């Protein structure tokens, strides 16, 4: 009967109710903490924790408790964890979400339960359009915006034609569509690769070369970006087909991409050297707290998410039952963002600048990302008309 007792014991453990507490601010954070993209999740967690340090781990006078959950890079798991945070942990806020597909899968339980969510990365077009919700706020962008900015830059540079390559999931499709929306040259090809399992881009690179396009545009976040740049360099294409990117080179991938990334431009709404005070403090304190590491845009957006939540809690003096007031406060975006001040569109997506980032090597041989120019100011996404909110 030992097994029976053990079963009963485990079941009892399963049914144990976590202590209910109305005196803490509970935040659930869903991201990826395992697998090759764990480095992104860790950056987001590090930055969120840093923000809490700066806030003294208190919002509106109440202590803050954060529960981190791992979506293991899968939409169905992300949804499961989201539900657990809402139903079991009864969080006041949810934040995080790297991947568009994970976000879309998790949206229903969030909206159904009227939990306020701060999206610190994913930007699927549906969220900016028909699936917009008064409970969801973004501290990132809408997927199409960043590649659209890159398209504008490519126009400025007089690029005549491009071959597009991207991963075949919600964000990948958004990205390539985004470039097409602004780029004036000829699109010589559009290839989607199997995501996230396809890591060998030899076929696509061969096709790009054969197409005769003047350039290549890619979107490959995380580890795929490392692999793509590797194979791109090994294929010897750097000279004949310059590469333009979005979300492929960032502070998490740069240590692995190394010299392959030099001279490959990207577009971003935040670069670590943006000159505002809050950003300088964020980057400096991050490097102090986590020696040898630099924050990426994922982290910057997570830092902002914590600050945005704080602005809401402060506005209601810690009474998180006042959801409507909190939402109203968040809509004002009244906090010091590390990308500089921004406003929200009707769909709760930021209206913000996009910068050109490039990789440079300093005298000591250290690689870092630098802001080269502002591509576009106060850019608003193209989907806000589809959102029924005012």
């Amino acid at each position, binding site marked *: 009967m030992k097994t029976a007792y053990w079963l009963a014991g485990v079941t009892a453990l399963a049914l144990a109710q976590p202590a209910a507490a109305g005196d803490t601010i509970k935040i659930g954070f869903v991201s990826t903490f395992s697998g090759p993209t764990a*480095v992104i999740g860790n950056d987001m967690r590090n930055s969120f924790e840093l923000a809490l340090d700066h806030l003294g781990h208190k919002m509106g006078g109440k202590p803050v408790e954060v529960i981190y959950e791992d979506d293991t890079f899968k939409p169905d798991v992300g949804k499961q964890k989201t539900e657990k945070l809402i139903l079991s942990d009864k969080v006041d806020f949810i934040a995080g979400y790297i991947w568009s597909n994970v976000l879309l899968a998790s949206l229903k339980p969030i909206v159904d339960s009227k939990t306020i969510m701060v999206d610190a990365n994913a930007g699927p077009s549906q969220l900016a359009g028909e699936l917009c919700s008064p409970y969801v706020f973004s501290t990132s962008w809408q997927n199409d915006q960043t590649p659209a900015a890159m398209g504008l830059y490519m126009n400025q540079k007089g690029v005549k034609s491009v071959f597009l390559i991207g991963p075949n999931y919600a964000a990948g499709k958004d990205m390539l569509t985004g470039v097409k929306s602004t780029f004036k040259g000829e699109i010589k090809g559009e290839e989607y690769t199997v995501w996230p399992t396809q890591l060998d881009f030899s*076929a696509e690179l061969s096709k790009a070369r054969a197409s005769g396009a003047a350039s290549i545009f890619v979107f490959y976040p995380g580890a795929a970006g490392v692999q793509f740049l590797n194979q791109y360099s090994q*294929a010897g294409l750097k000279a004949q087909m310059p590469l333009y990117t979005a979300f492929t080179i960032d502070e998490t991938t740069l240590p692995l991409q190394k010299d392959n990334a030099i001279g490959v431009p990207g577009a971003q709404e935040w670069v670590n050297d943006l000159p505002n005070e809050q950003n300088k403090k964020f980057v400096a304190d991050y490097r102090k707290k986590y020696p040898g590491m630099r924050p990426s845009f994922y982290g910057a957006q997570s830092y902002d998410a914590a600050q945005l939540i704080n602005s809401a809690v402060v506005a209601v003096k810690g009474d998180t039952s006042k959801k409507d007031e909190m939402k109203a406060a968040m809509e004002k975006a009244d906090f010091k963002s590390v990308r500089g001040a921004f406003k929200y569109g009707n769909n709760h997506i930021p209206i913000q600048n996009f910068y050109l980032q490039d990789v440079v090597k300093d005298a000591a041989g250290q690689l870092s990302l630098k802001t080269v120019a502002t591509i576009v100011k106060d850019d608003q996404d193209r989907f806000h008309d589809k959102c029924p909110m005012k």
Partner: protein
Amino acid sequence: MLLVVEQFLNGLQFGLLLFLLAAGLTLVFGIMDLVNLAHGSLYMMGAYFAATFVAWSGNFVIGVVLALGATLLLGIVLEVVALRHLYGRDHLDHVLATFGLILFFNDAVRLIWGPAGLALPLPAWLTVPVQIVPGVFYPAYRLAIIVVALAVALMLYLVVMRTRIGMLIRAGASNREMIGALGINIKLLYTLVFGLGAALAGLAGMMQAPILTVQIGMGENILILAFVIIVIGGIGSIRGAFLAAILVGMIDTLGRAFLPDLLRKVLSSAAASTAAPALSSMLIYLLMAIVLVVRPEGLFPASRR
């Protein structure tokens, strides 16, 4: 035309990489009748060892050699400690036990090396593109993979077919009691065979590492392809594994290269882009299903006693 040549080479290179992985699997399955799902984990360990030793020694070749030794050793330890107890048992037991090993290895790697994965950079002399045919540039490293894999295939063939130990291996597969009765240490033989399989898997892992990165769970996806290959080729047949691997590599690469354009003639671009990769993956499984229904012993089965 040039595109076809390049894609052909890509398919060949991918197929040969798959062969390295499948060869070990088919040997172990054919000779010890062991279904080893953890073969993918050995592939992963090979890559992790290589990245670690190359970084430690500063030399690519030395690092790879050390990693090969380490993977061989790991394979032997694994066989002695865990897997030899599974010989003779139900295949289902093998599946369950080695499934458990996959879970274990993934987390062990995460514990030791962290969750982010590693990089294995190439030495400069391997990063240059080589002009093999006027107008067609192919990365030197991928050519190196082709050369090395072919050399290993040849070596394997010679060892199994032309040496005494190869003969013992083949004999052990036919009739292990007899071999034992003749005074050959069958346990040692099996351990060595498993170690060889592990080394081959590790070699495959470390060879693809500079092209793709080194990450946790990298074995799961490619493992399934390896199983498909040994079934198509014939379980226990190295020749079968070789030919089937090339075939599968070609189908996958050429399918991914040319299917999307074909599909765009009938479907919209977006639908074609989603359907094409799925279709090319399906083709391989379809081939295996056909082989299983029509000729279950494989296309190039090992000669039976």
